[in-house]
């Protein structure tokens, strides 16, 4: 079986406007001009999806954290905290820095930067 790439990663939402404001205005991700509920991250598309539209129960992405590469985790964390975003914690794994936070509907996100070769 041939898998060519990941077309998108779904990000569950309960309110498109609120999620769009977060991903576009707080994180600053470029919005797909063709599909305003999709955001481009440089390599893969994040697609907002309200599962209740499909008759499904809402559930967050659970342990399916999406790791966003930023130039400097501490600086990005400080910038988000200044915008009122709370962080669950942070970690230096010995090869990378990580800071854990959630989007407005509880989806798990990570600020990530690997510093070791």
């Amino acid at each position, binding site marked *: *079986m*041939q*898998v*060519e*790439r*990941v*077309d*998108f*990663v*779904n990000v*569950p939402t309960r309110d498109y406007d609120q999620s769009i404001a977060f991903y*576009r*205005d*707080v*994180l*600053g*991700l*470029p*919005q797909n*001009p*063709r599909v305003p509920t999709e955001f*481009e*991250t*440089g*390599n*893969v598309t*994040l*697609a907002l*999806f309200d*599962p209740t539209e*499909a008759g*499904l129960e809402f*559930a*967050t*992405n*659970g*342990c*399916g*954290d*999406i*790791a*966003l*590469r*930023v*130039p400097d985790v501490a*600086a*990005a964390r400080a*910038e*988000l905290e200044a915008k009122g975003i709370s962080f669950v914690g942070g970690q230096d794994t010995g*090869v990378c820095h990580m800071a854990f936070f959630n989007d407005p509907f509880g989806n*798990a996100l990570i*600020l*990530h930067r*690997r510093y070791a070769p």
Partner: protein
Amino acid sequence: MNEETATAGIDVERVDFVRVPVKDIEEAKHFYGEVLGLEQNPNSPADDWIEYEVGDVTLAVMTPHTHDYEFAPLPIGTIAFRVPDVAEAKGKLEAAGIQVFEIWDSGVCNGAGVRDPSGNSILLHHRYAPYPDGTMP
């Protein structure tokens, strides 16, 4: 890229990885590596954190219970794998004993849901219609 929106925020460069929680790493290696045929990253950092490269993004297949948190499966259709032909991919997975849900057609793309051995929901996906500007994915 939209320059106006790209200048705001925290300079996200890309998605480094998406975490895929699993209950049993050996079972997951069989599914992602052998059944789906994804390429394992030889630099995967640990036996309980195996990375697969899927063309554009890394999937970090890992066991939450060895990383101090509780397993919760990915919800419906979280990761959409682009395949050349959804029906053909469905047939191959079913031949390998994997249950695949019915194929749907959105009018621009086909999809069929699958669950990995840990119950994570993934999607076989193929867009067949061009975008309004005539380009193809």
